[in-house]
């Protein structure tokens, strides 16, 4: 399994439109809904918001990974978006979030292969070179190719 099994080109956006954390969350939820993995946008948004309340998912280094585990999710999926100007995500190190990964995980699911893949994504994001390459991609295809490396 690779990360690209959990995402596709429609879920990748090299220019996010929203200019606040809330707008970007909404925008990415729409994308996930567009590929049909959400039973209820409202319930999934709640899961995302609840996680942000427990502590910001802005992990610094210009990255935010809003994620929600919810019954409203039918299969694990990852959306990726770039906001070049950055957006305030209340990050621990005060940096603006530029690379945003939204992760949707079902409450219960068979096996944990998808969790392993998400673990690999998390570990890969700690790699500075990988972050640099991601922020500089111009096209959806380039981004897709980079994410394909995660397996």
């Amino acid at each position: 399994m690779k990360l690209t099994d959990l995402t596709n080109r429609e879920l990748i956006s090299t220019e996010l439109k929203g200019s606040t954390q809330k707008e970007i969350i909404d925008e990415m939820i729409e994308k996930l809904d567009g590929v049909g993995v959400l039973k209820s946008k409202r319930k999934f948004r709640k899961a995302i918001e609840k996680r942000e309340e427990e502590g910001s998912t802005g992990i610094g280094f210009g990255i935010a990974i809003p994620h929600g585990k919810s019954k409203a999710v039918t299969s694990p999926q990852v959306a990726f978006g770039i906001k070049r100007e950055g957006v305030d995500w209340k990050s621990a190190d005060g940096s603006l979030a530029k690379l945003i990964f939204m992760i949707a995980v079902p409450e219960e699911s068979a096996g944990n292969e998808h969790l392993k893949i998400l673990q690999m994504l998390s570990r890969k994001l700690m790699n500075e070179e990988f972050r640099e390459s991601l922020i500089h991609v111009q096209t959806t295809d380039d981004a897709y190719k980079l994410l394909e490396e995660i397996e």
Partner: protein
Amino acid sequence: MKLLAITSCPNGIAHTYMAAENLQKTAEKLGVSIKVETQGSIGVENEFTADEIEAADGIIIAADKTVDKSRFVGKRLFETGVQDGIHKAEDLIKRFETGNVPVYKGDHQSTINKLKEERKSKQNPVYRHLMNGVSYMIPFVVVGGLLIALALALGGEPTDTGLAIPEGSMWNKVLSVGAAGFTFMVPILAGFIAMSIADRPGLAPGMIGGYIAANGSFYDSEAGAGFLGGILAGFVAGYVAKWIKTWPIPKMLQPIMPILVIPLLASLAVASLFIFIVGAPIASLMDGLTAFLNGMQGASSIVLALLLGAMISFDMGGPVNKVAFLFGASMIGAGNTEVMGAIAAAICVPPLAMGVATLLNKKKYEEAEQEAGKAALAMGLVGITEGAIPFAAKDPLRVIPSIMVGSMLASVIAMLGNVGNNVPHGGPVVAVLGAITNPVMYFIGILAGVFVAAFMVNVLKKNV
């Protein structure tokens, strides 16, 4: 320097692993050895062993979720949020180099847990597996034994073939329920010994092996191999299953190993052992002992009593016990009731002695054993020798010799006192039902045997 770190976050999807990755990278950069245990939604990965904790110079906990710290009592430990693992890994690691980290003393409970854990890890593994089996078996012995005791005491009538409970009576049903409990005794013992050795794949072969061990019909023997056979079955099933686990197996087959291949092969192995190897010697042992006892009839009645007492307690319901019991029963038919009188006194000594022993010195018995001791007393009163099995299975080398000495003494006193018994059953209950001639000497024999065995076993046993 050797460090250990635990990372954990609320959802266990992302931060846990970011912090782990960062701690590993930073440690590598600083030339520090680190192992990071992740407690995420996949479960615990990369878990520390007791040796690794022992060898570590310090523990970092970077978690936004409660992490059980009881493993780390006595180690330098620094606890912080998962964010610090992601952003301040270098600070965290250097903190241990500058020596500014206090030793974790633990709360009272975790100190106790750690002591228990240490004691456990120092225990001989064979003993630990045996303990596991016994602890699961105890409730079966207690439930089965108490119901059988109740049914015999309240519904039993002395007859030529033993204490009989009239068919169709309520007590007969109670007896059957109790018997059901006893049926599981040896399979559960064997099953959980095997599970302790080989985890879940060991359970089925252990239970099946235990069932075969307890049922002589599998290997053309009049009696099963008893609890001693069950212990053998449990260890064989467990170690075979564990060994099969080490086979190099193609990845494709791995999913079916724990549910199909290992249980199947290990069950067949333990079954073959009993059917082809252990079975015949048990049957011939029984024949040999029976012939030997028949030859003893002319010899000194005291030697015979000593021998029968020892045999009754040796395996409690196993083949040796059965031979002695059947010999006594056949002597009643031949008109000699004194042999059964001696056996009846010996029969109740093991459970009564172990029950009295738990009352005399609580420090030598765990809580479950103290409860089992009370049940053993009830079983002893109605002549169910099996009540002592949990004690004998757990600590055979100290318990079996003690109860053998007690039974031998009871048996000899009864024989010297010309105690007769015309019902093939043992324990105080047969005297209460009027089957015993010279009941005074019968009770003196039982009491002497019980107290000698109880004192002996408590002297031999160490404190828990």
